[in-house]
């Protein structure tokens, strides 16, 4: 268990990205999760997204809470600093880290128990504050690590593996995130990497609080008939409202689309997310309508996926706080200490 390091066999044909990294350079330790666990697919999508975006791995800080999902940051971006914090409190640690150094990319990974149960308070407030981050909840409706108890996102009436029916109503994280002012809100499915990778890329290039709820089945405890978070259930009820293509500013736009179905969203860094509408009456720019749409679909048992809301002109916490461009962890006594002369004046004012 303890010292598993991946053998570093670089396949000669593996392509390098623009900054000379191979996909493999974005990987981490070998996963210790159950074979088939949705969380591993999300890790793979994160790796893919970072590689495709030419992100320097060491410029990412990955933070998580506690749970199977929260273990995953050890399994991707091995050259990034990681922090497996305490259960439900990743958002506060990420917020503090972000305040210390605004130049890194902050990736928060959490579970539905971690974020919707014990950590709902911190989830809510980090989003309210507009922390510039990518916040991913790997949502399986149960506590995987403690062996299958219901979490707060479990649907009312869904059945546990042991046959217990959940009587509490579910907490809907995307609905909440939209209400709380998240400026990039998406839902994906771990079983649909094609949809998920661009959603993550869009979130990474977004400046502000980006939240992605990824339905991620737990094969050990919540993948049976009667569960609303199983692979089968989600495949059957997945209603993708749009398809997202992430268009790199440097790349030429080659894909052709039929007119009227396309919305281009220019992100803060100039990159473009191109939305292909799959549902005619869905609009990812209208927060209130999007919330209604998602809730109406939910009431019918549908799982709406795609980019649900985006505000490309969002402001983040550092802008609210008017902090210096230079990360504050780089300031020294020179910049921070008012000095002896000022202190003498302060002393005088206290006499």
């Amino acid at each position, binding site marked *: *268990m*303890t*010292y598993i390091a991946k053998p570093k066999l670089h396949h000669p044909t593996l392509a390098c990205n623009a900054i000379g990294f191979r996909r493999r350079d974005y990987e981490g330790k070998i996963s210790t999760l159950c074979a088939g666990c949705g969380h591993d697919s999300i890790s793979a999508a994160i790796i893919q997204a970072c590689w495709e975006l030419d992100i*320097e*791995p*060491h410029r990412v*800080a990955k*933070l998580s809470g506690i749970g199977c999902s929260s273990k995953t*940051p*050890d399994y991707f971006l*091995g*050259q990034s*600093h*990681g*922090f*497996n*914090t*305490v259960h439900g*409190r990743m*958002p*506060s*640690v*990420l*917020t*503090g*880290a972000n*305040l*210390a*150094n605004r*130049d*890194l990319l902050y990736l928060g990974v959490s579970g539905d128990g971690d974020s919707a149960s014990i950590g709902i*308070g*911190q989830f*809510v*407030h980090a989003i309210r*504050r507009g922390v510039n981050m990518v916040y991913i909840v790997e949502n399986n409706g149960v506590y995987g690590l403690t062996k299958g108890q219901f979490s707060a996102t479990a649907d009312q009436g869904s059945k546990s593996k042991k046959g217990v029916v959940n009587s509490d109503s579910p907490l809907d994280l995307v609905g909440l995130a939209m209400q709380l002012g998240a400026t990039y809100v998406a839902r994906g499915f771990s079983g649909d990497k094609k949809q998920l990778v661009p959603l993550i890329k869009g979130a990474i290039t977004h400046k502000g609080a980006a939240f992605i709820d990824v339905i991620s089945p737990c094969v050990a405890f919540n993948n049976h008939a009667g569960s609303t978070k199983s692979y089968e259930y989600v495949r059957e009820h997945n209603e993708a409202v749009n398809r997202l293509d992430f268009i790199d500013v440097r790349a030429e736009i080659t894909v052709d689309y039929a007119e009227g179905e396309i919305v281009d969203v220019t992100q803060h860094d100039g990159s473009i997310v191109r939305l292909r509408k799959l549902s005619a009456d869905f609009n990812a720019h209208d927060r209130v309508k999007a919330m209604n749409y998602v809730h109406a679909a939910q009431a019918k048992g549908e799982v709406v996926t795609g980019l649900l809301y985006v505000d490309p002109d969002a402001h983040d916490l*550092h802008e609210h*706080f*008017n*902090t*210096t*461009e230079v990360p*504050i*962890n780089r*300031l*020294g*006594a020179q*910049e*921070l*200490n*008012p*000095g*002896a002369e*000022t*202190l*003498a004046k*302060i*002393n005088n004012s*206290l*006499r």
Partner: protein
Amino acid sequence: MNAQVETKPHPRIEATNDFVVKFANVNGSGSASANELFARAILRMGVPVSPRNIFPSNIQGLPTWYEVRISERGWLGRRGGVDLMVAMNPQTWDADLKEIEPGGYLFYDSTRPLPASKFRDDIHVIGMPLTAICNRTYADARQRQLFKNIMYLGALSILLDIDAREIKRLFAEQYKGKEKLLDSNVQALELGREYAAQHLDPIGLHVQRADNVGDKIFVDGNVAAALGCVYGGATVCAWYPITPSSSLAEAFQKYCMKYRVDPETGRNRFAIVQAEDEIASIGMCVGAGWNGARAFTTTAGPGISLMNEFIGLAYFAEIPVTIIDVQRGGPSTGMPTRTQQSDVLACAYASHGDTKHVLLLPEDPHECFEFSAQAFDLADRLQTPIFVLTDLDIGMNQRLTAPFAWNDARDYDRGKVMTAAELEAGKDFGRYKDVDGDGIPYRTYPGTHAERGAYFTRGTSRDPYARYSERGPDYVYNMERLLRKWDTAKSLVPQPILRGTGGEAHDGVIYYGSTSPSMSEAIELLGKQSLVLDTLRVRAFPFPDSVGEFIRQHERVFVVEQNRDGQLRTLLINEFGIDPARLVAILHYDGTPITARFIAGAIAAQMQPAKAKENAA
């Protein structure tokens, strides 16, 4: 006017520059600023004062007191007893009356006559029809209320010989640019003075100009600690409002706005978050500390309780963070506006598992500044949570204290941080490896180097290279290393202060924090009874070896504290394995600051049991 009571002749208290005045007021009546003026005017006359607010957890309508110790000698603790009671609150009349020393004075509003049974015949009663005068003079209800306070200030200045020019100068400073307010305050002051001069008999308490204030400053511990954080280089503050700590965060904000804005860009070199609770506050500090910023939170006991899980994480994952706990009366909400030293154990051993934390124990605002600034160096050097334990008595009362000092040559100690250049040069990096034998490993800031120095921080056990490991030997290596680090801390923290008698004393006293000023006076009181003791003021935990030596050198050691359970005594017994019988607990925990008379009385009773019985009989 004050003829309702037939006062028998009895000795008046006669004292110059050494007495206690207590104001009994109603919360929200505007008395606070008049009372502060009273204290400041005496200070300006060169006579040390030490005022204490005793206030309820309430905004308006409940009883509140302001007790001023006037002491040319410079005793800044509470003495005990009251020589002059300014009784402005009918609600607390009976209790206030009881507190006056025999031969002392009662000043009250005599507008409404009171029956003789409402007075004592061993005190001197001074009645002044404040309400009547105010009602005559002012039409506006709020003015009637506010100027009543200024008027009694005027009367007291006559009775006690306080220089009215000092009060007027203070008015002028306070109302600079608001001339109308200035004039009306001066007018109310003069009205009070005129009345007193014409109608009130002189009393035996007097203030006389002296030169004993020197270059001292007058400031509360929360403001001092906030400045300490500014000077110590704190850039991230996350907090959640709680009495008595809120004014610390607010003062930090105020000073940052003044001294931490980049003059060129107008951008802030700080970030202050009012978090959603104390768990988030400490979480943000942990995140910021992990990422190389100097972060602190400030709170009181209930906040410490909430922070426990994170404190354990920071200890085990070795993350610098500073926690300033302004202690108040517990447990639970206890007495939120009263003082205590009752979080000592909760902080020393905060969190689950085997944990111990560094505590700094300032005695006054000067040390609040010093220790808060130093806490950031210690946190970085030791890579662990550092607690600064003050209390409401120090935190929220203005105290005469040595001026703040800073040496511009002093740089911050950022501790062992491996740089990109060192990593590039191939220096071995084991995040939890003891390379220097002091138990302190190297760390790297996130984002330092493209291929080296990244590691995964977790609360789970790991090997010296930060790799997840549940192997027993790896766990034990780490826990033993943390103990070595603990030993290293002993020489880095503020050392205890010994006041010895040069071998004369068989007994010793250990004390800390806000007990300090009363203790100094108590030692003098005991000396007058020929009871001599060596004293040791403990300023930090872990205790340096000298603390153990002090205990071993004395037959008996009194441990004076402001809590019920003798918490520091427990720490001493636990850390040194000392026979508990040798450590005698002297405890004061009713929520009011400990007094010199209490300490002296309690220690004398132990040292001369026979005499104490005699006195009691």
